[in-house]
């Protein structure tokens, strides 16, 4: 909030309205108050009733500190501010504009100053808005740590923001994970700033390798990903991603692997189109108290390459807080994978797996579903449902500070992953089999912690209720990751 300020005297001047009185007021005001004592508008709003809906007009917008950023993209971002009708509007719009400028990824801190307009063309209600921007340096970099799905990694990255002055950037990233997964990627990002909706085009090449000891193989990917992200409503609630991915994947056998997995070893080429659509109205990513998330993704592989399938996935999460001390959360995930032709293979890397401390709790990573010789083979359909009840820590230690990072939760989760042939005929019974047979279920409780507002750490004690003989169960689980059920 701290960066939006209005100079107190401006307010009064606006309120007074008449330009002839202005000089008087100005002189009567303490000059130091005028120049130095900036007042936080929101505090002001609480303390004293100020008519924010006072008519005002934006005469001029200054953007200070532009060096290599091109004018046209800045213009596209700020023009909406001219539409503001009153002072309140101006503030709201100024915020939005600041967000948009920030989204360009070209600037460090952005400050907003609002002043009455001066000069020959100034209108009586006119104000001037000044954005103080700080362009980033040509090359930035850093080393950071990240937590991914049950793994911590070190990331070394370098970024060249605002390459040609229109928000283009080039970034390189190398990460090395604690489970010896490595990831090198280089991407070019080009935002297209329209008037209201903007699109971001990202092209990246990557080289990753991951081990999946639960399935007995490791995977090495080299690929190209082109992603077009846009939000049609401009608010960031509804988001679409259109992606094209071409990946050369190599499945490498580990020493002891089931022959069924071994049969799938070797190189393959996946060329896929993907559409991800998400509506996210939650108030927070990790511990939301209200709102829901619906995400639907469709992937079609088989435009070239030797891998062909259609994959649909649905993720739903909804939150409800009847009382300050209790938040209910329901999460649901499901997916379906189908082949498209007999010539195109489906690799084990494309299959669905279930189980893990942030997935279906109570089971080891990839711990349920079809297995052979201790290797998880995955299935082509799955569903998982979890119901959580969150409460703050008892006696609320560290309230409003450190203590708010932790929550206790009790949960019950269930799901199933299997191979089945989907029949589109009205074979209701056959198709519902996955919801009826071999359903896994576990209850438990534990402590959850949020980590930098993107990751989540959980320590749980779980008791599996329903399981199958092959499943790998875990009673104590520690999980860390970005996605959770």
């Amino acid at each position: 909030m701290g960066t939006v300020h209005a100079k107190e005297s401006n307010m009064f001047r606006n309120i007074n309205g008449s330009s002839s009185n202005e000089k008087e007021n100005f002189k009567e005001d303490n000059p130091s108050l005028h120049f130095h004592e900036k007042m936080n508008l929101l505090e002001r709003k609480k303390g004293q009733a100020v008519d924010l809906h006072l008519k005002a007009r934006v005469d001029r917008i200054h953007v200070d500190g532009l060096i290599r950023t091109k004018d046209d993209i800045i213009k596209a971002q700020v023009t909406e501010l001219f539409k503001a009708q009153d002072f309140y509007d101006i503030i709201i719009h100024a915020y939005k504009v600041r967000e948009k400028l920030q989204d360009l990824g070209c600037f460090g801190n952005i400050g907003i100053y609002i002043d009455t307009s001066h000069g020959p063309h100034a209108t009586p209600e006119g104000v001037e808005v000044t954005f103080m921007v700080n362009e980033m340096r040509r090359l930035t970099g850093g080393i950071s740590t990240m937590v991914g799905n049950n793994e911590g990694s070190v990331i070394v990255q370098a970024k060249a923001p605002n390459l040609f002055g229109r928000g283009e950037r080039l970034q390189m990233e190398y990460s090395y994970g604690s489970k010896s997964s490595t990831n090198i990627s280089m991407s070019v990002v080009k935002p297209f700033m329209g008037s209201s909706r903007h699109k971001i085009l990202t092209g990246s090449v990557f080289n990753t390798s991951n081990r999946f000891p639960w399935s007995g193989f490791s995977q090495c990917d080299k690929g190209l990903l082109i992603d077009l992200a846009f939000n049609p409503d401009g608010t960031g609630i509804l988001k679409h991603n259109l992606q094209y991915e071409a990946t050369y994947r190599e499945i490498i056998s580990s020493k002891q692997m089931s022959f069924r997995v071994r049969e799938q070893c070797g190189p393959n080429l996946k060329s896929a189109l993907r559409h991800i659509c998400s509506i996210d109205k939650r108030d927070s990513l990790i511990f939301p108290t209200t709102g829901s998330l619906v995400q639907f993704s469709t992937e079609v592989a088989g435009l070239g390459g030797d891998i062909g399938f259609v994959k649909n996935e649905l993720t739903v999460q909804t939150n409800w807080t009847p009382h300050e001390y209790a938040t209910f959360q329901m999460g649901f995930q499901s997916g379906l994978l189908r082949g498209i032709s007999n010539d195109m293979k489906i690799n084990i890397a494309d299959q669905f797996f279930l189980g893990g401390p942030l997935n279906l709790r109570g089971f080891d990573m990839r711990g349920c579903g079809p297995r052979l010789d201790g290797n998880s083979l995955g299935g082509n359909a799955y569903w998982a449902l979890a119901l959580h009840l969150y409460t703050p820590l008892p006696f609320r230690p560290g309230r409003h500070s450190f203590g708010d990072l932790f929550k206790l939760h009790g949960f019950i989760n269930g799901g199933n992953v299997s191979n089945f042939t989907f029949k589109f005929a009205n074979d209701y019974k056959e198709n519902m089999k996955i919801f009826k047979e071999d359903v896994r279920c576990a209850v438990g409780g534990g402590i959850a912690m949020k980590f930098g507002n993107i990751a989540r750490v959980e320590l749980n004690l779980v008791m599996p209720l329903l399981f199958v003989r092959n499943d790998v169960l875990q009673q104590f689980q520690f999980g860390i990751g970005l996605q959770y059920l």
Partner: protein
Amino acid sequence: MPYPLLADSITLELEAQEPWPQLITLYQPYEVEQILLPDNANCLAVQAFLKMCGLDFQIEPRSNAEYMSPSGRVPFIKCGQFLISDFDSIVTFIGNKGTSLSDHLSANCKADMRAYISLVNNIFINAELYICWVDETTLNEVTKIRHGSVYPWPLNHYLNWQKRKEVIKKLNVLGWYNKTLEEVCNEVQNCCTALSERLEGSDYFSGEKPTEVDALVYGHICALSMINPSLPRTVQKITATVQEFPKLLEHASRIGRNYLNNCMLESACDFEMCASSSKETLWNYSESIEALPPLSEDSFEILLLNP
């Protein structure tokens, strides 16, 4: 370093517990469109060896056989829960099960045999690799097409490039990369002369009964001499070199007749190309990129699938 030894001894013990004989499945690349010369030679050698041992086996062609193999080389056999790749390891494995072709030989003869095996592995495999991956004509006209045949565009080009790089690196280390085709042919000729002299008038290398060497030599001679006449001239040159040795061809056709029941080499004795059943089969290639395999007992690498 104790770990591999321990693993070996565990494997040995487990091996002993496996009931025998088990059904053997032999995995190899597709013969008609994919396999390249060195791999073809190895696959034929293993097939001949298993037949000589009187073991039944099934051939299972897989396009990714090379990647499925625990050592990255073809062929490999699956026997119960074990996967064994490479000629030498397979021989050792079968030997541990009590079926051996060279038990009756004296220690001297065995040592000789090992020497010949290593000679064949050294010379023939490198020559085959050279022809497939270094000789430009063959590389472009045959190897790239065959090796890439099972992969989609553009993956085929990438994998061909990768494979070539790998082979060249290996040949470079062994000092073969800078040889000319003539030199390669000379090496082959020398090797053939040595084998031919050893063979003299007998049916097999160690007298009346075939041994591992016979299987291995059969594989290579068969693969090399049966090259399709439509293939590039450079390959024909090697073929011509091999065909200067009627004793080896006879030996190969004898094994073919007696153990593999095929007539592939029937006419080869007349120094003619036989374009019979296996017209296309001749080329095999794959991952035989391997230096001379060590001959010691602990050289075998057996993959324990799951006890």
